[in-house]
Every structure is written in C-alpha cells, then in structure tokens.
C-alpha cells in the first residue's frame, strides 16, 4: 500500500483524521530540510512526556496499594492524605464509565455528569426524607443506581438517535436542563444546598477511600469483562461503522442504550458516594460541568477505548491539577515567568494538553507509547544520523 509521506498509517476515526490534518499542517510549516529533525525532536519529546505521565500513574497506583495495606503493617496514614487518592479513584470511575459510551461506542457524551448529579440527589432526597421517607445510605446508594438507570433509558432512547456533534450538544443540554430543574425543587434544597447526616462510622476518610477503591475496581472489572464479549465487540463495531454493524445483525439502538445506561450506573454510584462523603451539596457541586469536561479529557489523555487509558489519564490529570492548584515553588516560578497565576489558570494548561493530545497522540498517551516503542525511536535516530551524514 502506498502511503503519503506524512501519513503515519494511523486509524481513520474522525479524531485521527483531524489529528492527521493538523500534523500535516504543522509539518508543512517546517522548512523541508528540517522536517526529519523536527519529527525526531517532537517524537523524542512525546515519548519522554508519555513516560513521565505513565510514571505519575504508576506512583499513584503504588500509593493506592500502600494506603490499602499501611494500617495492617503498622504504618500510620493521616486522615487527610487519603483525599487526593480518593478523588482520583472517583475520577477513574467517571472516566471509565464515560469511555464505555464515549470511547468504546464512539458517542461523545458531554453530559455524563448529569448521572453523577442524579446519584447525588437521589441520596439527598432519600437520606433527608424530603420525598418518600427517610432511608439509610445503603438503600440510598442502590436507589441512586436504579434512578440513574431509569433516567438513562429515557434519555438514551431519545438522544442516541443523534450522532456526532448533535449528540454531544444534546447531552450537554440534558445536563443543563436537569441541573436547572433540580435547582428549582424544594425537596433538593435547591441552589442554596443541603447538608446530609454525617456517617455513623469512624475513620471516615479511610472508609470512603476504600469504598471508592472498591467502586473503581468493580467498574474496571465490568469494563474489562464486557469488552471481551459480543456486546463489547458490538460497541466497537458501532464506533467504526454503525450502518455496517446494523447490516451485520447488531441491534445498534439496544447496544448503545445499554452502554449508556451502564455508564450512567457507575457514574451515579460515584455521585452517591461523593454526596455522602462531602456531606454538603448544592446543584453547582452535584452537576459540575467542569467535571464532565475533565472526565472526557482523562479518557482522551490516557487513551480512549482501552481499560488503562482512563485510569492513567485520571491519575495524571488530577495530580497535575493539584500541583497547579497548590502552587509549589516550581509552579509559582513558571507562573511568574509567564506572568499569570497557574492556580487560576489550570484549565488553560489542560486546554494546551488537550490540543497537544488531539494533534500529537489521538490514541492517548498509552496509544502513543504503544506505537512508538523506545527501541524504534532509537533505531530511527541512528538511521537518520546516518542519512544526514550521507545525504543532504
């Protein structure tokens, strides 16, 4: 097969096509004699950054394991040190759940956080007893899943008829509409918020860390199990060519709605846990539009459509956000040079990362590293040096 000079033979999903076009544009801007060198520098830089991201994720993973076993081996962990890891585990759930519909099925939902809110507010109305009586958390937790399933079914049959941008915008609309509706209900505490009963158990931080860990593990296992089944392959088929999938006997509507409801289920469970842990919630916290963007970015950065992609993305981006947020000496110094406070501008940094990923690594960090094994890079460099010496 003959290939264009700039065509890296990558896949042909819309994102990849956009990426290929962007790459080509950038490459054309580089004067011809420097293109090969440019490619090597960028490739080397990309691999290095990719390895760094992976290293952060590995550290987070090891830290998580350490927290699990620490008390049993007599190492004390202070309550507050769980906070960051617990939030990362929550985002692992959100990003994996998003990836089921967004990555594996190719339906980019921009409203997934709506199910998080549904989870939050199911817990609110059941634990506060403002709708149908007062219940404990376990009942409220299960109910959050049931309500999210039902809501996702209704939304799914309506919205999954749309595709591409229309679907993305419609899900965003569903998110805003639901948020406004909930904000105007008396039973939910409205926009001014509501305080939940405190958990009866001691060692709250560790307990919620373990609960989120359990939820993340279950989500990952379900994801891993499903993606090896006929259903999982069917979702990928829909992503690649929905009309072909239909012609091959796949009930596309049923598959899409099922993926979407599963996504909703885990997202709502995360919301339910979050509400109980946070104790105070209002509609701004329950339906955080920022988080809907963040979970997508996590899947995208790590690598969509693969189990470890959203996990790596969640660990890296949340750590990065915290680093920028807490503003250590390095961050402050970089901020001073740029003349901005990075603490306030962390979303700008994320924006830059988004562009870099879409252009340079449409399959995410993991996809990038898979396609660019270190040895290949080294070999290419040796060849290039040889060519440069011989040619030009």
């Amino acid at each position, binding site marked *: 097969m003959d290939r264009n000079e700039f065509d890296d033979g990558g896949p042909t999903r819309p994102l990849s096509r956009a990426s290929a076009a962007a790459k080509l544009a950038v490459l054309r801007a580089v004067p011809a004699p420097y293109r090969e060198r440019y490619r090597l520098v960028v490739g080397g830089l990309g691999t290095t950054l990719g390895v760094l991201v992976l290293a952060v994720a590995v550290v987070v993973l090891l830290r998580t394991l350490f927290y699990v076993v620490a008390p049993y081996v007599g190492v004390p962990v202070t309550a507050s040190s769980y906070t960051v890891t617990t939030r990362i585990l929550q985002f692992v759930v959100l990003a994996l759940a998003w990836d089921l519909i967004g990555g594996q099925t190719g339906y980019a939902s921009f409203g997934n956080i709506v199910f998080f809110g549904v989870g939050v507010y199911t817990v609110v109305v059941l634990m506060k007893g403002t709708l149908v009586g007062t219940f404990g958390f376990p009942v409220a937790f299960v109910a959050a899943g049931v309500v999210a399933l039902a809501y996702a079914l209704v939304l799914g049959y309506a919205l999954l008829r749309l595709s591409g941008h229309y679907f993305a915008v419609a899900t965003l609309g569903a998110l805003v509409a639901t948020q406004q509706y909930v904000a105007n209900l008396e039973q939910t505490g409205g926009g001014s918020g509501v305080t939940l009963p405190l958990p009866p158990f001691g060692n709250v931080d560790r307990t919620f860390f373990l609960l989120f860990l359990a939820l993340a593990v279950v989500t990952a296992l379900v994801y891993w199990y499903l993606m090896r089944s006929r259903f999982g392959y069917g979702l990928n*088929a829909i992503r690649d*060519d929905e009309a072909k999938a239909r012609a091959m*006997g796949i009930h596309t509507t049923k598959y899409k709605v099922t993926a979407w409801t599963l996504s909703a289920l885990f997202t709502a469970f995360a919301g339910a846990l979050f509400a109980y842990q946070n104790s105070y919630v209002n509609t701004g916290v329950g339906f955080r539009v920022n988080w809907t963007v963040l979970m997508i970015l996590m899947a995208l950065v790590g690598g969509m459509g693969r189990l470890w992609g959203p996990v790596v993305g969640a660990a890296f981006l949340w750590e990065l956000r915290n680093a920028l947020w807490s503003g250590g000496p390095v961050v402050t110094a970089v901020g001073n040079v740029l003349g901005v406070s990075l603490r306030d501008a962390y979303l700008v940094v994320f924006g830059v990362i988004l562009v870099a990923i879409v252009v340079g690594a449409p399959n995410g960090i993991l996809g990038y590293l898979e396609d660019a094994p270190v040895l290949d890079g080294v070999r290419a460099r040796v060849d290039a040096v040889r060519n440069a010496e011989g040619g030009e």
Partner: protein
Amino acid sequence: MTELTATGITKSFGGLLAVDDVDIEIRDGEIVGLIGSNGAGKSTLFNCITGALEPDSGTIQFNGADITSHSEHEIAQEGIIRVFQEVRVYDEMTALDNMLASVDHGAETTLSLFRPYSDDVVDRAYALLDRVGIREYADATPAELNYGHRKLLELAMALMTDAELLLLDEPAAGLNPTTRTELGALLAEINEQKTLFVVEHNMDFVMDVSDRIYVLNNGELLAKGTPEEVRSDERVQDAYLGGGGE
C-alpha cells in the same frame, strides 16, 4: 432449507421508479447472479431484501416467513447478510477483531451477549481467515491490508455470522484477473454451505459462477434463466450486452 421469494417488489424515490414489480426466487444451494447497467435497480433491490429500505409494495419471504417489514438487523440475524460494494469493515480493529465482532448477534439469551468469547469462537475466526487466505494478517488493521485482502476480510466476516444466504455486491470489482479467478473458486467452495445472490458487472465472472441469472433494466425484470439462456436472450443483448458490456 434456504429459500428467498420476493414478489412484486416496487420501490420509488420521488418520481423515479427504481424497482418496478420485480419477482425473484432463490433456492437452497444456488448461486444466483443479478446483472444490469448502472441505475438498473440492483442495489435498491438488495436494500429492499436486507431491510435497509422498505419496499413500497410487494412481499419478501425467507424460509417461509414474511420478512418484508423486518428491520435490517433482524433480517441479518434471520440469516441474510450483505457484503457491500465498497468495502465496509471496522477500521479500528484488527482483522481478527473484525471477525469476532461479526459473530451472530441474535443470541440465544441476552446474557450470553455479555459473556466473553470462548476459545472455540476465536479458533473459528482464525479458521475462516485461513479459508479466505488472509490468516497471516489476523493482527493487521484494515488500513494495513490491500484492497483485495480487505474484500476477502469482509467476505470472511459474512461467513463468521450464521447467515445462510449471502448477498454479494460486486465481489469481483477492482480485483485483478488472478485474484478474480481465485475468488470464483472460493465462492464455489463457500456455495457448498451457503446460498449466494451476487450482483456483478463483470460478465465473464458472473456467467461463470452463477447457476441462474436475473437481468434488471430500468427497474424492471428484463430476463431470467441459466447463463446460456440469458446470454442468448435478444432483449438482454439489445439492452445490455450489446451496448458495450464486455
């Protein structure tokens, strides 16, 4: 026992009558050809049979059941699979995964849809890739395959389903003469288990592989019969073969 009977199929788009009162019958174990110039209504007829379009009138019976108003995925699950004219495979998946995605989706139970594949299924996928001659490319993505191999992959995917009747839309188009001959042999081999309905522009090829042939012209059935009968039919010669067929 595979049997497809389409009776009085009519389909129009606005003022254009694409298929006009066409009767088709395909019996178990046959290879039936469908020929006609561009715009004769071949693809529309295929679309009506596979449920991609619903005919304005007429009925389609498959193995004794009326499937006229069934949806596309139902008809596929009932045993009619179409292989497209322009190659349609799943671009992001390896050839093997393309095969695994094509396993019959009309599961016995809903739960079995969610169970991971057994080794038997994977073995069958490899065996079928082997049968069409592209096993060595099992781990390649479609972008890494040449055109002919992509066509063979799509054919293998159709075999991976449990379909009894395959509708092949120009299987030989774009193939070089050697590959075309190999394809003819392969179709004859596949025909031992599957019934085939083939749209084809290459006259030699279709005359060679088909048991019977239908000729469409301007949406109407112009002629039908064995390849010899069709070849010697005057109307066909006037309308089609004489007009610069091959």
